[in-house]
């Protein structure tokens, strides 16, 4: 589970190291690398496909290749480049990033950046998984279906729910599936028109509001009470005959666990609505609390971060949505079923109340295999240990960070946090004029970084850290030391912070490349059109 020993008692010599972690001398690689489309030359190839052997042509009766009607009129506009150049190109690019496997990635709060065991990659690149086609007859993919069925069983146990769909391709897709099921549930009761409001909270996973809106619901957002907890009185004021559901994260993105979550669910149920538990922040509660016991009707997991596969920012995603028996008819189809009599697994596509497909076929199977392997390697006790270690690491880092000048921990004063903390540099900002974004950028000069917060910033000058179970005490000490050093610079040498980064590949990313639709270029074709003007 963990690459290094987690936080805990240390020997005196270790403590000495922990007290004075050396700041790393770091400079990011800079290759001034062109885009791959700008490399190579016409006719250059990575793979030379040999001519068809005459014996094969003869055996096929003289016909080789696709019929003319199935062939493109013009060849695809692909880079023309050799294998070594391709390998070098991507290695160089990889050195110009701060990937999850390269830095102490505790700063990507809410994203649950944890170690993804490399052995799981071997499973999914195995021919028996990588070689499958989604349209194969189910009789030929019994092993894959068995893994999916078993994974559903494991997630049912983790969540307490009656059925789980693995079809969503990401956390947001799973939330959307839940919202679609809520809509289907009320449509069957003749309440689709009247129950058109979904309630969420401002510190919940923003995908809740986004998915509800995408599905056509009106969204009511609750702001926190003075202590930072979801405001239960606001919920009472919000619910009514138009309430379709509450979509809520717990712990929220502040890392604060809502101890009255069951009451929240009861209030919504009393108004005739459903309650869906967003478990994007499940890493600190695995094996400790379950959605079912809090009374939820639906829940979802981000399998791609909580359950081993790297977060979607660094790789493809996978989501799972769990429901009670009452919602099970609305699950995406097909579901994976098991016939005990024949001992065969089969796909049930005959589900008239289903919300349909959330994505084609059976979900992102490689990530589902990773999740299955990860859970099986840990067992029930291991899952709980993951959560406990993540919470311990988080509160250890909290203890270290709150000693840094200029930092504060808004809300729920003196209370521990679950798996992450949203800190505030408000005092440092007031004292020095340095903003949180600038501190995060300066941290890149020490080989790491952090993320501030979703917008809008409810916590002023925010910083969100989530250390997960993967990081050692030395990692956390190093990270805290970097923050302390940048804070010291902000007070004593603010210009160094203001003009950072100084040791990165690119000094400053042009914000319009991210924000301006007239400039942003997600493909070579749009880059040529928008930037190069060709």
């Amino acid at each position, binding site marked *: 589970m963990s690459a290094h020993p987690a936080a805990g008692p240390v020997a005196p010599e270790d403590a000495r190291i922990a007290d004075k972690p050396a700041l790393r001398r770091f400079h990011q690689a800079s290759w001034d690398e062109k885009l791959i489309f700008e490399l190579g030359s016409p006719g250059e190839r990575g793979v030379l496909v040999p001519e068809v052997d005459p014996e094969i042509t003869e055996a096929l009766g003289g016909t080789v290749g696709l019929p003319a009607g199935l062939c493109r009129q013009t060849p695809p506009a692909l880079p023309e480049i050799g294998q070594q150049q391709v390998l070098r190109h991507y290695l160089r690019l990889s050195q110009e990033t701060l990937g999850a496997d390269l830095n102490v990635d505790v700063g990507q709060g809410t994203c649950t950046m944890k170690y993804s065991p490399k052995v799981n990659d071997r499973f999914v690149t195995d021919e028996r998984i990588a070689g499958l086609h989604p349209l194969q007859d189910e009789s030929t993919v019994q092993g894959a279906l068995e893994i999916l069925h078993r994974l559903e069983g494991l997630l049912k146990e983790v969540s307490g729910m009656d059925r789980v769909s693995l079809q969503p391709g990401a956390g947001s897709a799973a939330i959307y599936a839940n919202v679609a099921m809520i809509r289907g549930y009320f449509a069957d009761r003749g309440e689709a028109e009247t129950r058109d409001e979904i309630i969420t909270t401002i510190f919940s996973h923003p995908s809740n509001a986004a998915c509800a*809106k995408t599905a056509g619901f009106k969204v009511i957002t609750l702001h926190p009470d003075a202590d930072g907890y979801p405001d239960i009185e606001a919920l009472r004021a919000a619910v009514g005959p138009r309430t379709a559901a509450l979509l809520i994260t717990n712990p929220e993105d502040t890392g604060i666990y809502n101890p009255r979550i069951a009451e929240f669910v009861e209030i919504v149920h009393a108004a005739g609505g459903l309650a869906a538990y967003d478990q994007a922040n499940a890493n600190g509660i695995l094996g400790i609390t379950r959605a079912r016991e809090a009374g939820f009707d639906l829940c979802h997991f981000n399998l791609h971060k909580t359950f081993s596969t790297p977060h979607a920012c660094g790789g493809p995603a996978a989501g799972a949505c769990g429901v009670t028996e009452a919602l099970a008819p609305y699950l995406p189809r097909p579901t994976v079923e098991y016939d005990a009599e024949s001992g065969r697994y089969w796909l049930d596509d005959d589900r008239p109340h289903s919300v349909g497909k959330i994505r084609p076929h059976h979900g992102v199977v490689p990530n589902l295999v990773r999740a299955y392997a990860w859970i099986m390697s840990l067992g029930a006790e291991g899952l709980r240990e993951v959560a406990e270690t993540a919470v311990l690491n988080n509160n250890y880092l909290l203890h270290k960070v709150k000693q840094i000048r200029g930092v504060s921990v808004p809300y729920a004063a003196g209370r521990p946090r679950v798996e992450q903390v949203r800190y505030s540099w408000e005092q440092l900002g007031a004292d020095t004029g340095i903003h949180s974004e600038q501190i995060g950028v300066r941290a890149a000069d020490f080989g790491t970084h952090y993320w501030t917060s979703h917008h809008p910033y409810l916590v002023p000058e925010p910083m969100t850290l989530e250390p997960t179970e993967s990081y050692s005490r030395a990692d956390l000490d190093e990270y805290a030391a970097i923050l302390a050093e940048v804070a010291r610079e902000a007070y004593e040498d603010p210009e160094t912070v203001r003009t950072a980064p100084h040791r990165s590949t690119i000094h400053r990313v042009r914000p319009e490349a991210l924000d301006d639709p007239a400039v942003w270029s997600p493909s070579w074709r749009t880059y040529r059109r928008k930037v190069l003007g060709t």
Partner: protein
Amino acid sequence: MRIGLVVNPVAGLGGRVGLGGSDGTDVQRRAVELGAVPCAGSRSAAALAELACRTRDFELFTAAGAMGEESASAAGLSARVVYRPRPGDTGPRDTVEAVRALGAAVDLLLFAGGDGTARDVLDADAGTPVLGIPTGVKMHSAVFAVNPRAAGEIAAGWVLDPGRPEVRPAEVMDRDEAALREGRLSSRLYGWLSVPYVPVRVQQRKAGSTGAAPEAVGGIAAELASRAAPEDVLVLGPGTTTQAVAAALGAEIPLTGVTALVRADCGCGCADGCCSCRGLRPRAPDLAPAPPLHLNPQGHETALCGCVVAGRAVPRAPEGVPFGQPSSYRLLSSHLTSDQLLALATHHPLLLALSPIGGQGFLLGRGNQQISPEILRTLAPGKLLVLATEAKLAALHSRPLLIDTGDDDLDAELSGYVKVLTGRGRTALYRLSH
């Protein structure tokens, strides 16, 4: 414990009559001509009454007459007068001299006024902790209690538990008139006063505009339009947000003051008689037609909808504007006084849309006193809408929205949770406090 009180008797005069402030004798004279009634004295008395009902363990020092003595008397308190203004109308110099006279004699000085008065207190440089009783119009400064009763409550806390609350420097701000001339609503910092800080009971300063992102404003405007009945006169409070929303609805309005909009097109394509088509008919058959409110540039009386009353040709309604969509509103009248709003409310259903002051959270009672308790009581249920971008709400950092209409019962009635329109089909449930 010695408490001082200085009242600027003319503070707030311009509020209900839509003058945006009360500084300067010309503005004050104009306010009185428009029917303004002084309120600083009575609000100061309310603060003192709150103080007195919590403790009597203090001595009160004040200035003569309307500068404090009358308020003390109205609150049933005796006070030692240590400053007497010159005969005639009082001015900033009287405030400065009164503060200097009282400053050395008291432990906490209460002053009643607005941002202009706060600047006078700053100029006096008395060195004594102060607390503003909010009786002005704008009050962008962070030196005021959230309402007069809160001022009395904080002063009582000061008397009962010296040393608590903590005294902090708080910003004295005033509207940046140069920025306003450039079309920006902004505040200028003049300095700091030492103020007893009690979270939620002492107001925050107005923050700079959080910006009105076009996508957010467009969504708010569309939601607002969807909630407006065809016959509603849309009344917008001042501010950057409401101005941007009005622009998204197709109307150019000023940053300050209270503005009324009507639908630009009823959608029927009529060439005449558009008053009735636009729904600008009286709400009940026994009411007279809407009275003309102002003169058009040619000097003709115009009706609420802008049609010329005296038999002149009525302009054809613009074509091709989708009914109920943004860009379907136009300006009816701006800088409305409370009396004009009442007249409007008498004959037409109003839909009132306000946006809180950024960083401060005041929805009513700061810079929009024209929207009086009388007008608020005429509104039908659901006809008071609150508009804010999510960024603006976030900038309150979980502090509640605030109201200070001057009518405690109404403030209590309106308090609770309000739905704030943050986008198309999106609302935030937010605390409204008094």
